[in-house]
């Protein structure tokens, strides 16, 4: 079947399956960022003190900052290994639209990184004595926010994939992009702890999600073309 005859859906599924298979063969890529997330969250009670009052006050911030850092660590694998063995260039040269490939790869990345984070977060919230009313807000903000982290992070990775020493540079590029998500997410969780409705903050995070979903792939495509020329 000639490549140009594949439907968008077929291409999406093909790239998605490829990335997931690769990730499942290297389980380290899934487990290590997750472990990092857990350990970083654990550090805070040890450093700040175990008082439940203090911890529950800062729990939303801790969980979200740890999620940001863990996602940042895992972004590298999005394009790095493909770039190293040349398959990234091949994908860009194909007649298929780049944004489909990019969306598929980012979705795979979210499934591998974001989804486990979301599943483990309630356990960590228990460790931090998070206010009982905040659990729903925590899950919803993570559900809407982690895809945004993957999408925006992909832009940063695409810009730096060709560089030799890009470790810290990636963080400098991506963390400012993450700050709006962080602010609204923690605000939503704090508001929920007071028993007030937090749909406003959720709506803004959702807007960030849909905005980045539609626009980020184009930015990523352009950045990849720059990085691989």
């Amino acid at each position, binding site marked *: 079947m000639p490549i140009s005859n594949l439907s968008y859906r077929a291409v999406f599924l093909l790239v998605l399956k490829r990335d997931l298979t690769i990730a499942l063969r290297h*389980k*380290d890529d899934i*487990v*290590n960022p997750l*472990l990092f997330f*857990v*350990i970083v969250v*654990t550090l805070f*009670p*040890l450093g700040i003190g*175990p008082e*439940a009052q203090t911890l529950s006050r800062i729990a939303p911030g801790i969980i979200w900052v740890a999620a940001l850092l863990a996602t940042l660590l895992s972004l590298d694998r999005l394009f790095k290994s493909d770039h190293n063995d040349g398959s990234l260039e091949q994908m860009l040269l194909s007649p298929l639209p780049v944004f489909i490939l990019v969306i598929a790869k980012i979705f795979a990345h979210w499934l591998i990184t974001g989804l486990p984070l979301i599943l483990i977060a309630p356990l960590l919230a*228990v*460790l931090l*004595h998070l206010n009982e009313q905040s659990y729903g807000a925590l899950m919803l903000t993570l559900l809407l926010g982690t895809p945004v982290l993957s999408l925006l992070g992909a832009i940063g990775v695409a810009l730096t994939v060709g560089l030799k020493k890009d470790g810290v540079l990636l963080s400098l590029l991506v963390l400012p992009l993450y700050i709006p998500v962080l602010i609204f997410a923690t605000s939503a969780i704090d508001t929920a702890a007071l028993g007030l409705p937090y749909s406003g903050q959720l709506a803004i995070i959702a807007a960030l999600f849909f905005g980045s979903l539609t626009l980020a792939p184009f930015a990523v495509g352009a950045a990849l073309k720059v990085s691989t020329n």
Partner: protein
Amino acid sequence: MWKWLHPYANPEVSYHFTGKLIPWLSALTVLFLAIGIVWALAFAPADYQQGDSFRIFYLHVPAASLSMGLYFAMAVAAFTSMVWQFKLADASAAALAPVGAVFTAIALITGAAWGKPMWGTWWIWDARLTSELLLLFLYLGVIALHNAFEDKNLAGKAAGILTLVGVINLPIIKYSVEWWNTLHQGSTVSKLGKPSMSIEMLWPFLFCFLGFALLAGVIVCIRFRSEILNRNSIRPWVRNLVSAQLKTLESK
């Protein structure tokens, strides 16, 4: 004095020895666990303070003891491998790690489930819980480090170093309830000869403890054999074994 152990340094001998061991250990495991768990759940008396939630004790304490014991075994294996260049010890250390991690997780989860009705909270950052959580992280770190290397010899050396560095955690866990004033209760069984636990609770505890220890042994033996095969896959005895196994599978 240790001459009788020398044949077991040969992977093939150890493989077959543990293979013969597994059926016996499995039978004993089922026996002890069946007796222990049924006794613990249905026949042991409820604690006069904690009521029936005390039955979690029969899971929690064996799991916690085993989590530390298995780590200690892993450390001994790592030490043996490093000092006497005993390659087979790397295989046993790799086999012990996942089992120890699971028992640590069980200890933490059953502890949380016990703590919620008793102390009012699923978790508290006191010395014993924190160091047990740390133990879980150490186990997971050792497993992750081992998986990161392609060459299993290097993996064993690296994981061994990490294991030995982490072994300092064990005395901290054990004595944390004595050194720090914590919410977690003190030891009830470890005082040999005069345990401060009634005899009706001691027996089901012993059965459960031995049952879980034997179960750990069975699983470690299975994983140990897999590790031996993996590391010695080019040897003729492995090749012959594999083709014999395949023939029996095909003839079924």
